[in-house]
């Protein structure tokens, strides 16, 4: 909050929502947003307005691993649609759904700035690039085995 001048605390909202979402198990509940509004000294509607505008905020519970597949042009021509269809089939869920065990959610998102390394998905902070069916298999296995850390970035 010290990043912004006196009286401009509202500017902290977007980052504060990211932190709230992280602490709230990956999504924004009404209670969590109301609490944030109180902390920032703004009205709840100002928080909802922003939370509903940006795609990174989840307004319903999500799985432990949210698989965000890019499906935009450059990824699409390198096979993104095939990879998404494969993952949907493998996990038995559609885009926007979560597996019954609460492990995986599939999301389709727009270009993530990794078009040269297509097809790709983001999970937590990681970009997973040049995806293949085999890589998806391995990834899902690793998640189930608890080997995937969502929050630390490794250069590749």
């Amino acid at each position, binding site marked *: 909050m010290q990043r912004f001048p006196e009286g401009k605390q509202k*500017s*902290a909202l977007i980052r504060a929502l990211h932190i709230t979402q992280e602490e709230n198990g990956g999504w924004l509940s009404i209670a969590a947003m109301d609490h944030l509004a109180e902390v920032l000294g703004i009205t709840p509607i100002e928080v909802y307005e922003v939370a509903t505008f940006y795609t*990174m905020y989840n307004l319903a519970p999500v799985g432990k691993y949210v698989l965000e597949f890019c*499906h935009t042009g450059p990824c699409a*021509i390198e096979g993104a649609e095939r990879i998404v269809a494969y993952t949907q089939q493998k996990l038995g869920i559609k885009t926007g759904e979560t597996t019954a065990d609460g492990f995986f959610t599939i999301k389709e998102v727009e270009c993530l*700035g990794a078009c*040269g390394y297509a097809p790709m998905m983001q999970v937590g902070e990681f970009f997973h690039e040049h995806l293949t069916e085999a890589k998806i298999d391995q990834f899902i296995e690793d998640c189930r085995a608890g080997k995937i850390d969502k929050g630390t970035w490794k250069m590749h």
Partner: protein
Amino acid sequence: MGRKLLLEHAHVEGINTYEVYRKHGGYRAVEKALKTMAPEDVVEEVKKSGLRGRGGAGFPTGMKWSFIAKPEGVPRYLLCNADESEPGTFKDRYLMEKIPHLLIEGMILSSFALGANTSYIYIRGEYSWVVFILEKAIKEAYANGWLGKNILGTGFDLDLHVTPGAGAYICGEETALIESLEGKRGNPRVKPPFPAVKGLWQSPTVVNNVETIAAVVPIVNDGGDEYAKIGIGKSTGTKLISASGNINKPGVYEIELGVPVEEFIYSDEWCGGIKNGKRIKACVPGGSSVPILPHFLITKTANGEQRLMTYESLSDGGFASGSMLGSGGFIVYDEDQCIVRNTWNFSRFYHHESCGQCSPCREGTGWMEKVLWRLENGQGKLSDIDLLSDVAKKIEGNTICPLGDAAAWPVSAAIRHFREEFEWHINEPKACMERNYGLVKEPLATV
């Protein structure tokens, strides 16, 4: 080999740290500017360099800077646009990830030139690890006296912060970016007033792309005249190109403006030719918003001249037979790619990203998506093609921000150059459904 001004040291081990960056000449430009130049001198060098905005529009940076209002007692702001969401563009991320201090050094120089004492880097939220990289580098810069109060004892103060977004292409538009920075929805503002007069918190503000700001470093180091010697005509200096699609060597390349497009695509120094020995079908040279070009207009203009990687040459022929350099998001399509499907894909993108303030954009992008999906699924009518052109024309120029145009141009261009392929989708619905994309096709659920 071309000259590299930005990525020269990108492959040096540890260049993301302060020590290594400094050892390779880092922060020399700040010393030079703050100790021996007045802010106007820096603006003058940037003017002389001919540098044009690298975010997409290509507006001369020095001129943009000279427009900033300077009312007494009102703070001015410099905002770095690191939203990078234009499909096909991934150059800014590369620069920030590899050489974060280059951007910070550019921010110090540009803030000094504009008289800004607080500056922000607005970065798309998905690049969360880059936020981490930048914040670490900023901390190092503070610790070594390049940021904070009374930098180098010159009396110049600067605070620099990173602020992440949260997923919205529209926040790359400069007034939407300002709204978002103020903690609101990213709805573009009606102009005027322009940000140079009333921007962030109603103060004079300049928004520049990451690459634009980084380019100020070599300009101050070597002088604007030296920078202007690179390139051709009004396309001076070097440009980062992010190459993607069906090519052998996708990636981020720094080129001297003026490289022939043919060389860029086929030389092993850059794209390395088309993958799997296929032929090129089309190319979108400057990010998803610019017109697509068919194979016979990519390496040569309609007049048969060699097409070059410059602002002028890529737009030669206007929209009838040319395109734009745009953000440098260079997407290549091989002979197997479906133009209708790609156009539908981009329309879906713009529909999804429209902020919804203007009805031509909100409704028009939805219509285009719907009609294109119908065509792609063999359910189109011949009249749909003209309907699409018509909707695109009605959006163009009738909206608050250029997203409307950006949504319309790719559709108009695809129809202009690939009408036969659209007709084939209508005349051969069965064949078009049988084409193998490895997909289960579903009808469009809702629009």
